């Protein structure tokens, strides 16, 4: 299946699903891994592209292919989370390298993320981990940019508060 999209020079180029996989699989996988866990991310990413293949003919290039794919992945992850009763919190935080205090900080941050509402957490993850801009997040979650910024602001205040409370409690 092939559709035409315009590249940065406004030239129409054919968009193939294989090309999308080549360019964006890693990005979609990482997105899914953060939300549904590493061992489920493969299935979720594959399902995202299979869905994309089915609806590729409807893609008109109004948004970036990556944003479009992440939109599909977001729904796929939500479905998996709903089915599995999961919380969208990066489970692999602690396994990354780093000093001991960093690891413990990551753990505290992970716990702090759990205290946020789903909407706030989603915005934080999309902005910080997936690297989307506020405008892109607004398109993805279908809220005005101002709402995204407000959620981001409140989410970080909430994170800071939860982390400092946790530190105080332990000292």
């Amino acid at each position, binding site marked *: 299946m092939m559709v035409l999209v315009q590249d940065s020079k406004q030239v129409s180029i054919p968009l193939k699903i*294989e090309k999308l*996989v080549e360019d964006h*699989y*890693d990005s979609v*996988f*990482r997105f899914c*891994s*953060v939300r549904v*866990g590493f*061992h*489920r*991310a*493969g299935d979720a*990413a*594959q*399902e*995202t592209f*299979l*869905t*994309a*293949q*089915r*609806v590729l003919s*409807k893609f008109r*290039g109004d*948004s970036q292919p990556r944003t*479009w794919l992440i*939109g*599909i992945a*977001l*729904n*796929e992850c939500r*479905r998996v989370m709903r089915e599995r*009763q999961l919380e969208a919190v*990066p*489970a*692999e935080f*602690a*396994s*990354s390298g780093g000093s*001991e*205090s*960093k*690891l*413990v*900080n*990551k*753990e*505290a*941050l992970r716990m702090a993320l759990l205290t946020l509402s789903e909407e706030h957490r989603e915005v934080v993850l999309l*902005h*910080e*981990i997936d690297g989307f*801009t506020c405008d892109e997040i607004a398109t993805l979650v*279908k809220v005005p940019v101002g709402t995204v910024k407000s959620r*981001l602001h409140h989410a*970080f205040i909430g*994170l*800071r508060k939860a982390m400092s409370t946790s530190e105080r409690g*332990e000292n």
Partner: protein
Amino acid sequence: MQELKDLFRNDPQEAEIIEIAEVLRSVDSGVPYGREELLSKLKNPTPVKNRTSILRWGLGSSALGLVVVAMTIPSLIGTHSNLTNEVASPQAVGTGQMMYMSDKDDPAPEAKRESMESSSARASAPSLTAPASALMKDKSVDGFYSTSVPLEATYGVYLERTGSATIKVEDLGRTADEVAGIVQNYKGFVTAKSINDSQDFGTGSMQIRVPTVSFNALQNDIKKLGDLVSLNENSQDITAETVDNTSRMYTWAQEELRLVELLNKTSNFENKMRVRRQLNEVRANLESYRANVKSLRERANFSTLSLTLQRGDNPNGGMQGSNGSWSRNVGRDALGGLKAVGQTAGTLGIYALVFTPVWLPIAIMGYLLKRRSR
């Protein structure tokens, strides 16, 4: 990062917020896998049908479905009692391919519908993938162990089966002993037993738990012990509850493993204590779900039969017992009366029909004589 800096510009918390954002960005999402598998799936796509063919396919499959249901219902009813705790796989559910039309590029609703459509088909997939199963293995360093839970695939149908039976027997004590023997043979157990025996009449009750696979055999054996008065059976589907609880238990087990790993990496005493506190919380949750899952699986693996034994006729007749049994007896008597009236009327009718050669000429002659006399 610039957007974040703009958001918190001149905010006293700016430095802390940026630090938090940096930690967030260091998340390790692992090395992607599954790309080759996906490419091969994309090369052999499932054909997508157009609307007309979907409609035709839908009508055709619905009609076929109705025929199949009509044909299988009687056999299902007949074989219902043969169900075990894991009787059917929902593999055939919702595997149909559909395509949804939308006017916009917005992937969300389509993806949502696509996801919903394929979710039921996916429900039959094993719940644990290889890496997840590997995670379940004990890992220990420096003496810290995970209390990992061995998990099996959780899908299938989980049924809790219960039943009740009443039988009339000659000797209550002997029958109760025979029942206990049968139950023991099926590796079950009697959870409660009471016998109330008098000279003319006696009753006994037993609560029996047997492995679900032997439930039907138990019922058949018990029927042979006396005259069956009544037999009821119920099945309750506890699949959703079991899958939910197992999934949560699995999530907590993973959490526990992760914390154990962290604990083993940590050498600082204070940090160790912090992680340990979290580990204790996680273990409390894990234990709770583990207990739930164990209980649910036991409910599915063992079936309960409430057996009532009766000896002789109740000396107080239908008046004894609750109002329900009294009214039932009166109803039964009334029905018996109606049946007797019907039988009498039927008998008279048959006699009249058989004796037609006798009474019909007499009746005709009488009628003719009556006309002539006028």
